[in-house]
């Protein structure tokens, strides 16, 4: 028996819609086996993971809070991936955005600066993230250096820069030597939407980003160029599209969104700058982008789903002593299944009884 791929005459639109669902189903089946291996009842564990967080309003808000950075970063990444530009350093751009925006919060701390502080911080975060993302993009366009490797290396650099700042110049003098800045002033904090809850203005901004992303991709020439350059580079060259310009542009957009997500996270749920502000949002957002089929509406749903796994993972750790690493395993397996199911859109899988050995004459 041998597995053979057959190219479909046309891409299958039905499978394009259901493939993420098949992938999620396969992932859940695989996870049940993993839970059983870990000695936990799979049904109970899956319930804690995927059902319990949906049952109370606190967890529901928490899902939205976690989905906020994931969706915002993933929208930007989808632009890159559609244009075949591989930005995998969103985690670093997230951190630099947080640093750039926090600079203003630290400088204005304790002064009576007005309401302009927060909008300025968000802008600084976006600019910081965009500039940081432009480093690998320029290295790619000007010198041909692999953007995959350079963007990833810069994640480590960003992490160390943040670490230096909160242990050195920006450390809160009254912070008992903990590596953190002072709590941001109220004017430097993202407002809460529901009194006493955790849901913040960032969720609204993310929804606006989703709508803007959909309009940009679907209704503008730029969105069309991005899709053509990625899907048919040769046709794009004949059409006179400048692929270098699009690499710079998509990196800048995704960097800006990742940076803004970073400063929103710091000025919102966290409230100060400290090491470890991200549980890998920049990497999980890659999965969100693919699971959402690089489509803004899909990304919104995928982001909520992956946020659910973060919350479910935390609850499973508390309730059932399931290690937190299971969440990462889950995310990795999910990405594999998503990619494999995507193959079904272009190819048909067929099992053939034995391999044809006709064309072996030369060997």
């Amino acid at each position, binding site marked *: 028996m041998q*597995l*053979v*791929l057959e*190219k479909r005459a046309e891409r299958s639109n039905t499978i394009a819609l259901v493939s993420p669902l098949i992938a999620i189903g396969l992932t859940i089946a695989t996870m049940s086996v993993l839970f059983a291996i870990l000695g936990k009842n799979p049904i109970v564990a899956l319930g804690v993971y995927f059902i319990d967080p949906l049952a109370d309003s606190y967890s529901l808000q928490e899902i939205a809070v976690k989905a906020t950075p994931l969706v915002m970063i993933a929208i930007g990444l989808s632009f890159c991936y559609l244009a075949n530009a*591989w930005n*995998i350093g969103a985690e670093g751009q997230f951190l630099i955005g947080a640093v750039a925006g926090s600079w203003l919060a630290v400088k204005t701390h304790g002064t009576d600066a007005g309401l302009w502080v927060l909008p300025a911080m968000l802008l600084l975060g976006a600019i910081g993230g965009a500039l940081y993302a432009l*480093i*690998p993009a320029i*290295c790619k366009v000007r*010198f*041909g*250096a*692999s953007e*995959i*490797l*350079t963007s*990833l*290396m*810069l994640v*480590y*650099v960003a992490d*160390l*820069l943040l*670490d*230096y700042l909160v*242990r*050195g110049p920006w450390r809160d003098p009254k912070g008992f030597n903990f590596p953190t800045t002072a709590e941001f002033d109220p004017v430097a904090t993202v407002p809460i939407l529901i009194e006493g809850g955790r849901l913040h203005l960032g969720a609204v901004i993310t929804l606006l980003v989703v709508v803007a992303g959909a309009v940009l991709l679907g209704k503008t020439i730029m969105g069309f160029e991005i899709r053509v350059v990625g899907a048919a580079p040769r046709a794009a060259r004949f059409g006179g599209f400048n692929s270098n310009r699009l690499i710079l542009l998509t990196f800048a957009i995704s960097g800006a969104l990742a940076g803004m997500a970073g400063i929103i996270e710091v000025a919102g749920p966290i409230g100060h700058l400290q090491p470890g502000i991200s549980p890998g949002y920049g*990497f999980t957002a*890659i*999965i969100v982008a*693919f699971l959402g089929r690089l489509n803004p509406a899909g990304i919104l749903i995928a982001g909520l789903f992956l946020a659910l796994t973060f919350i479910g993972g935390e609850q499973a750790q508390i309730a059932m002593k399931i*290690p*937190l*690493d*299971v*969440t*990462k*395993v*889950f*995310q*990795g*397996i999910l*990405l*594999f299944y998503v*990619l*494999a199911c*995507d*193959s079904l859109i*272009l*190819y048909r*899988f067929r099992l053939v009884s034995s391999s*044809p050995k006709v*064309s*072996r*004459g*030369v*060997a």
Partner: protein
Amino acid sequence: MGLLEAIILAVLAASTPLLLAATGELVTERAGVLNLGVEGMMIVGAACGFAGAWLTGSVIVGAICGMLAGVVLSLVFALMTLALAVNQVAAGLALTILGTGVSGLIGSRFVGEKITTAPKLYIPGLTDIPFAGRILFGQDAFVYLSLALIIGASWFLYRTRGGLILRAVGDNHASAHALGYPVLRIRMFAVMFGGACAGLAGAYLPLAYTPFFIPGMTAGRGWIALALVVFSSWLPGRLVIGAYLFGAVTILQLHAQGAGLGIPSQFMTALPYLATVIVLVLISRARTGGSTAPAALGTVFVPDR
């Protein structure tokens, strides 16, 4: 022991995991497959290597466990990219994310445990030669193995028929297929070799470099190994030079931190990563006359029947 001797010994130790992982990736990429999951295979290799050595008390069993773990993960990658024609960049990222989780899952119960690391070679007389003795004849088996592997890989790629076929598959899979070579099977073996090397490189860290396991202890070495393959222009000789240069950067920044030059330690720690970016830019810029990469690198091959 003089300072210079100490530095050279430390550089050899720091370079070995880079050289091991990069050797595997070089062969994989020569067959036309870009496996970005080196970091993931390494970190699982580190966890399984430590687990094997801790449970049995044998470094050799640990090394074999690390290699097997790398091979298993690389087979997942091969299934995705070769059998199911999945995009290699995305599958490699998935492998790294999965590897980080699996490594934590396996390794968490061993955090805080200690093992005896791989013994250093000692040949009476030879090892006692001042300066050169310990550098040439006083290393652990991994160091010699890493050099043997790259020499062996170089011999295989350029001096054997199998190597010629492998390079042909990496440069033009359609022609190789037309000549009747099993492209996907050859690529699978290349990917598995890469997995074994990455797993061994990861296992080297807890088995010889430090005697314990910490989650995330590979700290980007897998990615640096990928950059080294680009740096080497896919040539084994240059790969050795690159690996030792990067080992030297890592060790020199540690010594600079120790010397207390007044530069914050985070900046020194960032040096190897920044050096990778700069080297990638310089090497890509120098190569204006066209890329030396295997022509079919990273492209999907679906045989038509």
